[in-house]
């Protein structure tokens, strides 16, 4: 089980006069085996935090620790075994000319894992897709099927930390339920640590122990899941967001 520690994370994107500080100064920590949510305004920097953690952005300042190692110091192979990410845009994260089989096989090959066929078949079945889908290409899949391939790819190396960016927003609620149950079960059995971005506070309530509310690059409040049902937030924006979600949810 691995913890996450983010200290004074800062990033500026864009060049010259157009440069904008997207994250002025973000800090939070996630306990080993915890599921921590990131919620908040669209464009507030949630995906940017995940991109910094997986070194897709490298120009950040501050510290990011996974367990007792700084991400910057981890050798690539070890980093991939430790942390995997499910992207918000599944279309962009799958190579258009790679079949699902190749997508799932590449990590197994690079990390020299055994029982490759068995692992691939299990991964695809666990996300609710038939084994025949191994031979499909991304453009032959629906939006939600692509998302499930991306989840299978992240899970196949059994990393101890998963960064999940809206992992189920492209799925119908019946498939969402299967994926969330799978993630909850993996956490219980294997002690995985999750950092999960979601706009659906009901999903956050089901999955997360605590969550951070973001607005315009800042974490404005960190709350426990028990703060949701009767809105115990104190920051104005966090209160508004939870109120709006409760109203949205109860309109059923």
């Amino acid at each position: 089980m691995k913890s996450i520690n983010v200290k004074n994370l800062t990033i500026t994107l864009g060049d010259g006069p157009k440069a904008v500080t997207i994250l002025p100064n973000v800090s939070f920590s996630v306990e080993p085996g915890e599921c921590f949510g990131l919620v908040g305004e669209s464009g507030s920097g949630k995906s940017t935090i995940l991109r910094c953690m997986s070194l897709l952005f490298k120009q950040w300042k501050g510290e990011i620790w996974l367990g007792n190692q700084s991400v910057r110091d981890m050798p690539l192979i070890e980093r991939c075994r430790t942390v995997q990410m499910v992207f918000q845009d599944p279309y962009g994260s799958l190579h258009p000319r790679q079949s699902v089989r190749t997508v799932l096989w590449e990590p197994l090959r690079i990390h020299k894992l055994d029982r490759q066929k068995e692992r691939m078949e299990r991964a695809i079945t666990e996300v609710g897709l038939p084994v025949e889908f191994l031979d499909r290409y991304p453009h032959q899949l629906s939006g939600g099927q692509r998302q499930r391939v991306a989840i299978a790819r992240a899970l196949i190396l059994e990393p101890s930390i998963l960064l999940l960016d809206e992992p189920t927003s492209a799925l119908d609620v019946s498939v969402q339920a299967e994926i969330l149950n799978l993630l909850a079960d993996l956490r219980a059995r294997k002690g995985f640590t999750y950092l999960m971005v979601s706009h659906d506070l009901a999903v956050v309530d089901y999955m997360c122990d605590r969550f951070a509310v973001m607005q315009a690059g800042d974490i404005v409040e960190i709350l426990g899941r028990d703060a949701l049902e009767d809105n115990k937030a104190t920051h104005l924006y966090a209160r508004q967001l939870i109120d709006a979600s409760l109203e949205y949810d109860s309109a059923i």
Partner: protein
Amino acid sequence: MTGEQILDVRRLSVSYRSDGGYVDAVRNVSFKLGREKLGIVGESGSGKSTIGRALLRLLPTARITAESIRFEELDLLNISEREMLKVRGRRMSMILQDPKFSLNPIRRVGDQISEAYLTHFKCSKAEARAKTIDMLQAVQIRDPERVYDLYPHEVSGGMGQRIMIAMMLLTDPDVVIADEPTSALDVTVRLQVLNILDRLVSDRGIGLIMISHDLNLVRNFCDRVLIMYAGQVVESLKASELSNAQHPYTQGLLAAQPRIGGGRTPLKVLDRRPEWKEPLEVQA
């Protein structure tokens, strides 16, 4: 259905080419659309996006058949590609499910919106730019001047969705097919964007098809809902009567929905029955 009819689709079927022949993705789907909000929900992979793309003829290699597809005065099954060009993006537009990847990756998002406007309306570049910035503001994008100059990979998921909505709003269509247009928006921004779409329907009288996995949205925002499973419409309901659904798939969906304060017992999952795939015909 309210008011006059804009779109009438009868027995639409779509099959994709695969190694061993054709595979059905949509089977005998019929529905009518008036000046209203029609929701489509359904299983992942059930053919929802395929319906939208088939209506706009965005599927060059698929086999599309139908008894008829009428759009206002046009017979969409039989018009030429040249006539289709005047329909697509102008009179009927679609907000695609992967917004950032339906934009040109090497051009600024603002220029792409302005250009879409310029291809349909005569005005100066500066006017188009001003229109675009107003529209980005209308869809609640903070700092629209900055976002105008960004490339698609530099915008967030929810900004990409709002850019597509802004582009659609500027071309002033009669029918909009919105494929998961608000899934990446936080609830407060989502409600504001839904208000804009609602006004389009009530003030401008467009027909809106809303493909969505969000049951709260469909129930509260749409007038009617079609439920799809394995390529077919299995049920058609008034949105306000969604909780009285009869089909076991729809009932299973409602039961699988997590709620705030709903506890931690495993979410209910579906027991998908083979008979749900058997041919049936639902009129909507």
